[in-house]
């Protein structure tokens, strides 16, 4: 308990001292603040010591407290309070100078008035110290000179001051002290110079690295700018390439189909008898020409489709109103001719409650027709089931036949473009592109197409189309 109260007493004493020396807030520079609080502190110390000295002297020589020499000291002490006030207001240098002047004048004067040997003169070390701390060497020497000269002058005048032996002592003390003080002051100044220099250096280093950093940032920005420009240029080049591809496909499409136009049209017109009657033989060969022409058209369409798909240029044209029931019935009806001569029954089984499908109508028709005509082509007898079932979130289509089936080794192959199995070539005379295209078209609609089959067991092609696929209205690249 005792120790704690002592500590708090010490703390409050420290706080008191701090409050008494804190410089005014108008001074912002840290070093200036240190000097200001230093001078205030020294003045405060001098006031306290001075008061103690005067009190002791008054106790020892109670009769002389109103003597002239004492009065000089009291006046000096009073002036010191004023100087302390100056210091607290921030006039650091003025306060230090004033104090030096007061001490240099007051101490010898009081000693001279008193007479005899006086220790006061020894206190002249303090103004020398003050001038060393707050001013330069020049000022120290000036104060030193005055501190030596003034008592000397006083001792020659008609005063009581006896300085003969004291002068020797005094000069020793003063000179030694001054030397020490000057050296120390120089040392401190040198240290400060070094610190300032180092600070400046550090500052320079920081500036230099700042500049270097800025340069790096600029360089990097420039590099990024270059990279960005390259990327933009590359993108433009890619877009240009795509445009070229697209134009090529469009003109290929046009060029390849135009001659077919006249081949097919004239053959058909001729077969219809538009240019005169045709006999059975002519009719027969005209129909073979038509058949070949239509086949060629289908091949061209397939090749253009697969080219589009493989170069990523396949785009869907999405509509909201594909009526599955109607469309499948139409497709089934259109294949009646192909079934005419074969003992094959086509079973159409479509759920009545299938909603409108959102899809590329032409492409879905293409897939259905492709699967159904494949089934018809490859089935010599039996049944073909052409069905669609309404399932949650999707429609489930199936084309199941009782044909020869597809061997396991071939099942992957038939979905590869430009690959035909032997059976395939034998039967279809096709391009081998129909199934790969159908698979890609279904996948573009985010559905799945797959096969279940075994040799001699017929084939079942299934595919699903989701009802709520996330397809943008026009463009879905595959």
């Amino acid at each position: 308990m005792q120790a704690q109260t002592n500590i708090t007493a010490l703390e409050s004493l420290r706080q008191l001292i701090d409050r008494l020396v804190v410089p005014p807030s108008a001074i912002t520079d840290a070093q200036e603040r240190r000097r200001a609080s230093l001078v205030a502190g020294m003045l405060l110390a001098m006031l306290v010591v001075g008061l103690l000295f005067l009190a002791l002297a008054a106790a020892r020589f109670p009769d002389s407290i109103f003597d002239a020499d004492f009065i000089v000291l009291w006046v000096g002490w009073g002036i010191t309070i004023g100087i302390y006030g100056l210091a607290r207001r921030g006039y650091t240098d003025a306060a230090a100078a004033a104090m030096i002047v007061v001490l240099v004048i007051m101490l010898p004067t009081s000693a001279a008035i008193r007479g005899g040997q006086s220790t006061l003169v020894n206190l002249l070390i303090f103004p020398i110290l003050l001038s060393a701390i707050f001013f330069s060497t020049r000022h120290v020497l000036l104060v030193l000179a005055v501190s030596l000269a003034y008592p000397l002058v006083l001792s020659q005048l008609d005063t009581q001051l006896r300085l003969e032996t004291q002068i020797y002592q005094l000069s020793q003390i003063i000179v030694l002290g001054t030397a020490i003080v000057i050296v120390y002051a120089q040392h401190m100044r040198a240290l400060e110079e070094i610190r300032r220099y180092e600070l400046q250096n550090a500052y320079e280093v920081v500036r230099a690295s700042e500049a270097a950093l800025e340069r790096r940032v600029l360089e990097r920005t420039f590099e990024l700018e270059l990279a960005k420009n390259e990327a933009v240029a590359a993108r433009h080049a890619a877009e240009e390439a795509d445009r070229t591809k697209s134009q090529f496909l469009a003109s290929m499409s046009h060029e390849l189909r135009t001659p077919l136009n006249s081949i097919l049209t004239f053959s058909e017109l001729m077969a219809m008898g538009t240019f005169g009657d045709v006999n059975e033989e002519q009719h027969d060969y005209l129909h073979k020409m038509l058949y070949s022409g239509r086949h060629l058209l289908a091949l061209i369409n397939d090749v253009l489709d697969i080219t589009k798909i493989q170069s990523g240029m396949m785009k869907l044209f999405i509509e909201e109103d594909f009526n599955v029931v109607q469309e499948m019935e139409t497709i089934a009806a259109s294949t009646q001719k192909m079934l005419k001569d074969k003992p094959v029954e086509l079973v159409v089984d479509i759920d009545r409650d299938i909603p409108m499908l959102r899809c590329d109508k032409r492409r879905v028709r293409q897939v259905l027709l492709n699967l159904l005509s494949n089934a018809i082509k490859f089935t010599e007898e039996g049944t073909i089931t052409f069905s669609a079932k309404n399932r949650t979130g999707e429609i489930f289509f199936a084309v199941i036949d009782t044909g020869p089936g597809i061997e396991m080794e071939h099942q992957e192959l038939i979905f590869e473009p430009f690959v035909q199995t032997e059976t395939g070539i034998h039967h279809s005379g096709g391009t081998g592109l129909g199934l790969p295209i159908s698979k890609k078209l279904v996948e573009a609609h985010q559905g799945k197409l797959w096969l279940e089959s075994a040799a001699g067991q017929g084939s079942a092609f299934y595919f699903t189309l989701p009802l709520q696929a996330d397809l943008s209205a026009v463009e879905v690249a595959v």
Partner: protein
Amino acid sequence: MFNTHTYLYVEDDPLSREALSIIMRRVLKIERLYIFEDSENFLDRLKALPDQPSIFLLDIHMQPYTGFEMLAMLRKEPAYAEARIVALTASVMNEEVTMLREHGFNGVIAKPINVSSFPKVLQRLVDGESVWHVGD
């Protein structure tokens, strides 16, 4: 029923011209069919015709004016505001169909022209419908 209308057909490929003109004149017995081989002075020549067409069949890839430009010229004239204008083209990709719709065509007919289905398509046009069925 086809004969109540006058038709204009613009096509630069001679064989295609011949094919469609045979279908329309000989098979469908259309009497008033005018044919342009190019689109030079398109509007002047059109206005100079003895009968004004109400149904236009325009090949897209024409010079000096493309099918699109001819369409634009026609739609600016009040006389042809109600005309049925159809694009004929051998290359029909989905993007092109969208473009044709957006530009204001009443339909597209793909080449090669299917002799058996063409009459049905023409009938729908005559009835004032639009025809967008493309392909097979």
